[in-house]
């Protein structure tokens, strides 16, 4: 079993299988990839590449990796703490032997071609020796020269010498040379004086490094729009107008106000809070016609978080269209507006003006009834858009930019740039959120490694941990670390008191607190205390083990201890966050949880991980665009792939789509795809077939397919689920659908446009109705693509007949990203847009044989509009494939409430399932465009490849174990195990657990009346110790 957290570390006892690439890779290719930009995109790409067996040079122009995600407080739509989910990845990068980090570095030249590039890097001086610096921060206290802190969005001033932020990687100081007294005038040098590690080095010079890599991934992200340009909102003039990125820092517990939402002008409280949307986006007057895709959601998020911090805050969001189009977004928005006190005002505020003497900000808007309203706010947040910052890097790398200055990429595989061997992921390719960035990151890892198969593993260094120290027989010596988590825990729980208490507990020989237990420097520190105090167990009281246990376990290993000698107490999610107003009780409960964890820790034993061989073959279920792409990627990488399609024909929904919104020829692409798949030497195709029974586990699945020729059994190491989705079928009679042939769906319209334009010749007036079967109580989610599809088809109609009247009745136009350009084009070509309310949908009527549409246009105070029409087109959404309900349990993977497959982690593991070795792509995951589906398929292939490329999977040490001395031979457990992991040894009359099959559920242990069967890591005495500690008073 694996923990749900993404554990990307290459296990030391694992060997890589060299690839047998069939694609363009030459024998001379280099087994290393350069990743430029260390935001979440670059980080994920790096980690994936390492897992796939390539060395990575990760280059960031700043002093630390982390990017914008490192500055965010929480992330939508799960409200996960951004730093909490990011920092394990930061630490992983920092501690990976196979990622070489170049910070304060820029790429200045590239030569060569795909497979073998020579890259020239300019590495700026840090003026601190990273090998010596401990990140202690003493120097920072000495430096008197302060500058604006970019990490805090310039809201706070910070000394020139500093560690960029607590969780920074590398977690060492640097000197901002711009105003350093020593570097400019030869004076001061205080920092050098006080540094005990003698790490400050003023003599460092800029240097140039030359590196050979096989391919390059660009992930340099973006810059936020400069809000000063929209001068009507007074940013930069009025203190109480801030940007969203600044507000993100204001919300952050480690930010300039410690997470308190305060006015900038006077530090006073904020009650009325306003957000103005689309600042610098969807705005041709500033040259940014595209939609920034994330700001509607982050404004909602920031509203919710602000209210979480202070209940009496009343947030208002001034917007044009609410673009909550992604997975879980619409539900998030609904909840925010209906239950969580966020007010949405559909009007773009015209100005923000400061009032005197209050410093309040006045916003003018028009309400739904047409009244001109002026309202005062304490603080106004401008939802600034995303702007590309790619020109320089793109120039050096020689890749083309698109119309808006983002990197131009292939329409179907959105990470492929104009230059072979160079790939792009994240916002540099177009505005997107974190999960979409992560998908592209994995996809670019897939593409970047494609040509390098032959060099796989060549440059990989195996992690050499110090040998595990033998602790059996030793008295437990427990170290207790209590985390403040900034103010997340420290703001509620009396941390020093908990530390004091921990010191009094039996076996605890050391206890102390840390500001961030997960930071890189703390890992260093833990290794130190383990050594200094001769610790043989560790207990960390911090956040949830579900995300952070792997990090600390790795630290245990690097400290020379078995990683299972570690226990966590969750005093954040289960304590400080849920008892925010009860500091005394929360402190008491923390002590209790610490006592329980310490009680268990004392009894922990070292466990051994098992290894199980990998069958280097893949099963892909679903032969639509996503499934075929995944199969091709895996086949190209040299892995035999079984592709199972239940229909007689490959292609899925792509068969019914003719053009992409950008005009790409879907049919031609599909034909090419089908051709390649059908003739691929590594792909075995099963048409008209389905999956019957799935047995086994990661690395070693055994599946029975039902095929026209009877059952076929296949062995494989991974599964990719690409079973797609279906068009929502309008209900009989919904808008006369099925009763009047002039009422059709968008798919049918598209077919007629391309296959039967004659049938549209007499059509003069067309009305489209959006959100049919989406965004209602029955199907609360937004189908994401139908707004763009409607715009696409409306434009096609206008092209066929410029005089045709085309009206689209919508609730919000959700043409996110560059599709906004097509929305603008549609308007300019005279397509009418009429906005209706959910409670007052359009009505289709018959009048003497004519079709009549009546709708209350909310844009003009709900006045009724009457349109005669020849054709009514229903924009029916995408519904989940009903097969999923059956397939999910077979694969032991969950579905969301909407019936789509539910990934392991909505933000950071968008193609993985919690069940190892099973991955998802395409419509099976959520509605998305073709480009997004195919890109996700590449990402799934990359993740699958990281399993297949290894000889073995490492199984967890948490498995059942039968004490043969005690076993009475009752066979209770044998019958009970759902995984058939227990055999009965008839000879000796005892039960024997097969640890490769055992999933570590512990069901058998509860059934064993003789107490012979125990789950390692959750042994009975350990649980009893916890129970006892829980029940006894402190």
């Amino acid at each position, binding site marked *: 079993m694996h923990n749900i957290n993404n554990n990307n570390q290459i296990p030391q006892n694992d060997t890589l299988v060299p690839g047998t690439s069939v694609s363009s890779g030459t024998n001379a290719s280099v087994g290393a990839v350069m990743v430029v930009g260390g935001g979440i995109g670059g980080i994920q790409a790096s980690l994936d590449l390492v897992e796939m067996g390539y060395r990575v040079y990760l280059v960031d122009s700043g002093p630390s990796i982390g990017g914008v995600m490192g500055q965010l407080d929480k992330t939508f739509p799960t409200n996960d703490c951004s730093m909490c989910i990011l920092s394990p990845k930061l630490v992983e990068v920092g501690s990976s032997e196979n990622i070489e980090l170049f910070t304060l570095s820029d790429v200045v030249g590239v030569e060569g071609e795909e497979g073998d590039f020579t890259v020239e890097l300019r590495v700026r001086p840090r003026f601190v020796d990273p090998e010596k610096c401990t990140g202690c921060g003493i120097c920072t206290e000495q430096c008197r020269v302060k500058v604006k802190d970019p990490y805090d969005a310039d809201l706070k001033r910070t000394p020139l010498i500093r560690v960029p932020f607590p969780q920074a990687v590398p977690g060492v100081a640097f000197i901002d040379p711009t105003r350093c007294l020593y570097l400019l005038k030869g004076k001061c040098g205080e920092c050098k004086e006080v540094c005990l590690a003698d790490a400050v080095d003023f003599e460092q010079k800029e240097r140039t490094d030359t590196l050979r890599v096989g391919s390059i991934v660009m992930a340099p992200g973006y810059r936020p729009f400069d809000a000063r340009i929209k001068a009507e909102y007074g940013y930069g003039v009025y203190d109480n107008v801030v940007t969203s990125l600044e507000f993100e820092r204001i919300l952050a517990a480690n930010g300039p106000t410690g997470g308190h939402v305060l006015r900038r002008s006077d530090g006073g409280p904020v009650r009325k809070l306003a957000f103005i949307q689309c600042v610098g986006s969807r705005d041709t007057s500033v040259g940014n016609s595209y939609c920034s895709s994330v700001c509607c959601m982050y404004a909602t998020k920031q509203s919710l978080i602000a209210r979480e911090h202070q209940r009496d805050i009343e947030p208002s969001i001034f917007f044009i269209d609410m673009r909550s189009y992604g997975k879980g977004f619409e539900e998030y928005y609904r909840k925010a507006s209906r239950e969580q006190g966020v007010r949405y005002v559909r009007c773009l505020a015209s100005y923000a003006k400061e009032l005197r003497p209050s410093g309040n900000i006045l916003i003018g808007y028009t309400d739904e009834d047409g009244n001109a309203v002026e309202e005062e706010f304490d603080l106004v947040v401008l939802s600034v858009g995303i702007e590309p910052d790619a020109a320089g890097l793109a120039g050096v790398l020689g890749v083309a930019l698109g119309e808006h200055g983002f990197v131009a990429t292939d329409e179907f595989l959105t990470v492929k740039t104009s230059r072979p061997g160079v790939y792009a992921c994240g916002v540099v390719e177009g505005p997107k959120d974190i999960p979409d960035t992560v998908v592209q990151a994995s996809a670019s890892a897939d593409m970047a490694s494609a040509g390098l198969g032959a060099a796989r593993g060549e440059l990989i260094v195996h992690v050499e941990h110090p040998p595990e120290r033998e602790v059996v027989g030793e008295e437990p010596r427990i170290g207790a670390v209590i985390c403040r988590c900034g103010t997340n825990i420290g703001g509620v729980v009396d941390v020093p008191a908990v530390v004091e208490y921990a010191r009094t507990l039996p076996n605890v020989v050391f206890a102390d607190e840390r500001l961030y237990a997960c930071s890189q420097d703390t890992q260093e520190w833990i290794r130190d205390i383990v050594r200094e105090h001769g610790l043989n167990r560790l207990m960390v009281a911090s956040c949830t083990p579900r995300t952070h246990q792997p990090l600390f376990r790795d630290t245990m290993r690097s400290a020379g201890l078995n990683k299972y000698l570690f226990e966590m107490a969750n005093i954040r999610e*289960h304590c400080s966050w849920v008892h925010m107003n009860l500091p005394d009780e929360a402190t008491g409960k923390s002590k209790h949880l610490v006592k329980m964890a310490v009680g268990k820790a004392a009894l922990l034993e070292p466990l051994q991980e098992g290894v199980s061989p990998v069958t280097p073959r893949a099963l892909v279920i679903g032969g639509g665009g996503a499934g075929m792409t995944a199969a091709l990627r895996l086949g190209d990488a040299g892995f035999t792939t079984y592709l199972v399609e239940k229909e007689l024909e490959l292609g899925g929904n792509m068969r019914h789509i003719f053009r992409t919104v950008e005009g790409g020829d879907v049919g031609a692409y599909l034909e090419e795809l089908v051709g390649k798949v059908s003739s691929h030497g590594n792909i075995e195709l099963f048409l008209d077939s389905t999956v019957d029974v799935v047995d086994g586990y990661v690395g070693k699945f055994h599946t029975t397919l039902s095929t026209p020729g009877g059952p076929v059994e296949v062995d494989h190491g991974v599964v990719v689920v690409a079973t797609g989705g279906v068009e929502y079928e309008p209900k009989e009679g919904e808008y006369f659908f099925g009763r009047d042939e002039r009422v059709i769906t968008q798919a049918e319209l598209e077919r007629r446009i391309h296959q039967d334009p004659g049938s549209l010749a007499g059509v003069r007036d067309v009305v489209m109705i959006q959100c049919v079967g989406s965004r209602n109580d029955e199907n609360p989610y937004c189908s994401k693509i139908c707004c763009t599809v409607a715009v696409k088809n409306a434009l096609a109609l206008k092209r066929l007949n410029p005089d045709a009247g085309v009206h689209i009745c919508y609730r919000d136009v959700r043409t996110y990203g560059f599709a906004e350009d097509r929305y603008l084009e549609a308007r300019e070509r005279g397509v009418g847009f009429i906005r209706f309310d959910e409670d007052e949908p359009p009505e289709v009527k018959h009048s003497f044989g004519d079709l009549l549409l009546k709708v209350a246009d909310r844009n003009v105070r709900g006045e009724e509009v009457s349109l005669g029409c020849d054709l009514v087109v229903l924009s029916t959404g995408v519904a989940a494939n009903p097969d999923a309900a059956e397939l999910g349990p077979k694969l032991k993977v969950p579905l969301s409430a909407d019936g789509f497959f539910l990934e392991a982690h909505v933000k950071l593991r968008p193609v993985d399932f919690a069940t190892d070795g099973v991955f998802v792509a395409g419509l099976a995951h959520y509605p998305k465009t073709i480009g997004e589906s195919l890109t996700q398929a590449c990402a799934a292939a990359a993740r699958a490849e990281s399993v297949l490329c290894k000889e073995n999977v490492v199984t967890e040490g948490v498995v059942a174990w039968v004490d043969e001395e005690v076993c009475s031979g009752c066979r209770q457990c044998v019958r009970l195990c759902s995984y058939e992991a227990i055999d009965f040894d008839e000879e000796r009359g005892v039960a024997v657990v097969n640890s490769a099959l055992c999933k570590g559920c512990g069901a058998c242990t509860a059934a064993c009346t003789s107490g012979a069967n125990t789950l390692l890591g*959750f042994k009975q005495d350990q649980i009893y110790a*916890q129970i006892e500690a829980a029940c006894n008073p402190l």
Partner: protein
Amino acid sequence: MSRKPENNNGKDEVKILAFLCNWCSYAGADLAGVSRLQYPPNVVDIRVMCSGTISPYHVLKAFQMGIDGVLIAGCHIGDCHYIKGNYMTYKRFQVIRDVLEFIGIGEDRLRLEWVSAAEGEKFAEVIREFTGQVEQAGASPLRTRWEENPANRERIRKAFKPLLP
């Protein structure tokens, strides 16, 4: 947790132990935390991989040690990460309930709930409700008895002996 005999409402300050499965209920509790949903601080929890791992002994042990209420929470039936662990939980739960009744501990002190990873709100609500219910029932009679007379503690231990492994 400080043990005040009485809280403001004149009800007993009770203590509850929750067994949470790693995949759903523990995650649901995490979500409650991430969503900052507030609930009473009377509960401490033990994380187990699957609710199916919880044996009647664990529950009895807790009551023997004077706990006022026990909550077992797992994935919804059908959603078990281990296929049918929670089904076994369900069956065992019936047994535990009967045993408890036999030794005079009412069923209002024991609860089984299915909480998914997405049900932070439900988790908080379950804790709120169950805490109320246990408060209504008051301190565990076992605890009160030994708090009256420490010697009772040994008697209780003996009485439980045949029930525990």
